[in-house]
């Protein structure tokens, strides 16, 4: 149980990586952008991969009537997410410590994982909803209005995961270091659960 508890303490600490590393990354390449523009999505806000990428993405997006990329203060998520992650880290470490002291059973480990997974899925759902709004809630006075073959206005929602061709841009959306660290940390708590389950009960 001690081994399991140590894993349970370390695992949630990996989530702290989200404060320093991007959760997600979206890259936009085009013929005239051989060095693609890119945005890194942190739990605290969106930053350009290079210094002026956000400004340049906004500059291009204004042609098709997209809103500017939100600042941290424009979206509640960037205020709430850090607290959620912080609380979850605290909870996870606390459960681990209590497990180490044999105050709680290994089942709590799985409990934390399930809660974190639910929060993660909710977060992804929210992120996707934002992407949808960002890509389809367009200025009716946009300079360039493109319609799909069926006559509906073209929207520009970047993919949540993977690659998509949008007009002249090749858009790739992938998890970044923060997400990988979170995934690793969460997996450790699952391992902690199984190790704890196998451990002889004293």
């Amino acid at each position: 149980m001690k081994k399991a508890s140590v894993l349970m303490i370390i695992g949630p600490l990996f989530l702290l990586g989200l404060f320093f590393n991007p959760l997600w990354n979206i890259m936009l390449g085009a013929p005239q952008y051989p060095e693609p523009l890119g945005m890194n999505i942190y739990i605290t806000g969106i930053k350009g991969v290079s210094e002026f990428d956000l400004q340049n993405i906004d500059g291009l997006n204004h042609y098709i009537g997209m809103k500017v990329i939100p600042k941290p203060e424009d979206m509640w998520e960037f205020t709430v997410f850090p607290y959620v992650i912080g609380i979850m880290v605290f909870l996870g470490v606390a459960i681990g410590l209590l497990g180490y002291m044999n105050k709680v059973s290994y089942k709590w480990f799985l409990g934390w994982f399930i809660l974190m997974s639910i929060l993660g899925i909710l977060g992804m759902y929210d992120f996707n909803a934002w992407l949808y709004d960002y890509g389809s809630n367009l200025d009716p006075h946009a300079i360039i209005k493109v319609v799909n073959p069926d006559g509906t206005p073209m929207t520009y929602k970047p993919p949540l995961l993977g690659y998509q061709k949008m007009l002249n841009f090749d858009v790739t959306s992938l998890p970044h270091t923060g997400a990988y660290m979170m995934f690793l940390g969460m997996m450790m708590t699952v391992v902690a659960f199984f190790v704890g389950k196998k451990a002889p009960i004293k």
Partner: protein
Amino acid sequence: MKKINYSILALLGLVMVFTGCNDSGKKSSNGALSSNNAEKVYVAPGEQDEFYAFMSGGYSGNLTVYGLPSGRMFKEIPVFSQFPTSGYGYSEETKPMLNTSFGFVPWDDSHHPDISQTNGELDGRWIFINGNNTPRIARISLKTFETEEIIELPNSAGNHSSSFITENTEYVVAGTRFSVPVPQRDMPINEYKGNFKGALSFVSVDPEDGRLDLKFQIMMPGFNYDLSHPGRGKSHGWFFFTTYNTEEANSLLEVNASQNDKDFIAAINWKKIEEYVNNGGGTKMPANYAHNVYDEGTHTATSTMKKEVLTVDPTKVPGAVYFLPTPKSPHGCDVDPSGNYIIGNGKLSADLTVHSFDRMLAAIEGKKFDGEAYGIPILKFEDVLAGTVKSGGLGPLHTEFDGKGNAYTTFFISSEVVKWKLGTWEVIDRKPTYYSVGHLMIPGGNSAKPFGKYVVAMNKITKDRYLPTGPELEHSAQLYDITGDKMELIYDFPTHGEPHYAAGIPAEILAPKSQKIYKLAENKHPMATLGVNDARVERKGNEVHVYMAMIRSHFTPDNIEGIKVGDKVYFHITNHEQDFDVPHGFAMIGANNSELLIMPGQTKSLVWEPKEVGVWPFYCTDFCSALHQEMQGYVRVSPANSNIDLSWSLGE
């Protein structure tokens, strides 16, 4: 009889068939060779060249940037000439760059570029180039590829033996080709001999920011100082100048300056003179020369008139200056990578004279003098001579080195490049040039560490090398592969202006630090419009200042009213882009100057004096975006006596 005739004809026919076969055989082997050469110069689409080549523009006054081996031209950097393409010399910010003691001089004749060095090796911080006509030296940043500084040289005329730098870029050095009265005065021309002076200028370069300062001038006898090069390695601290017209003729020089069998290479121990000057030596004399500096932060140049120069009489500094007799009006003066050999390219001779630095020091030590000229000791020719290259060519002009013990010399009259071996002086190879080659260039070929892969020959005469374009043709360069024992001509390409010399450097040294944009946040231009809310129009008497911003794809403001006939309108325009390669242009109908091409983050100003009532458009000249054609605006010009208030707007 008839029969014989037929058989002779048949025989002739046979011979023709055979020679025909031979010819076609030759052609096909040439073809195979050519395709091999094609691979050597082929830089596939999207690929980049291995070297930068900076070629002087000669009478264009500028500096052009090429790639090697492709011969593709990347940029023309305006230096001494007004350049309407970018507004250089027309914009309010850059007009001061072309200020001189003669006032605004919008043109020059740029000759010899040289890249900054550290320990004798190319470091790629700056490139220097001389203005020959109105003596000036320019420093160009190799980060922005823009001219940052120009200093005028007083007491000088025909700034030709220039602008060559010392081993650690301590000095950029300039000798006068035409000797003149110093100070200038009204005197008969035929009293030249013994009365004119030849100034050799040593301009110090600040190691931090490259700022130039005319530290001292050596007032030499009134010869013509043609070309020069620094000592390197063991000869670091010396500078060598070729001279011609040691006859001091003042008319019909082509005859009268070609009488002496030998002219001189002047060897200058500049370290000794620097020490003399640092200890308070030399004479300050009144002067008047311009020093123009472009500030990257304010995007603006300022011109300052300097009023004094420190001159040095070489006879007052014992052991600082010697003359090395050198045959036949030498042109190029080149020092090999080891610093031991000083090559005098006697342009009216068939041979090359090579002096030895070691032997020169020994001759000075042994006081083996052969008289003196104006108090300057002349060393004995035989005592300084290292060897002679008997080439069989005619008219040697200039030599560079490959770093593998070989030297390459151009021969103007016999139109060829000759490869020879340092030390043994034997000729290894010779290849024709097309035609009448001036200088040649090996990247780093005048430094301690040449990159001996290519020779570029810069020819003076083009004739039939390209499709004809009327009487006036661009000059022609030839590229030789010098990696083998024999040189191989692999490419021909036209060059802009008249490149007198070039400087090459591996792309990997420069390309990574080439600047992409100017940061708007670092723009310190006093007239910059840093936010669109600062865009405005202000009147001061009949001067109107328009503070304008530009971004894809509009100007802020784009409608301006309240301008009157007789006003002097200053457009101060700031490009708000922060994206690589998104300049915007600005052109105003009827402006009596040029357009402006404004880089991201940069501010430039153009003056427009409206002469007629009306509504006059302006527009962006650089196809910046899909909405480029929409990037336009109007200025309403009212009669001089109208009382319409200034107003400006965007999107109203």
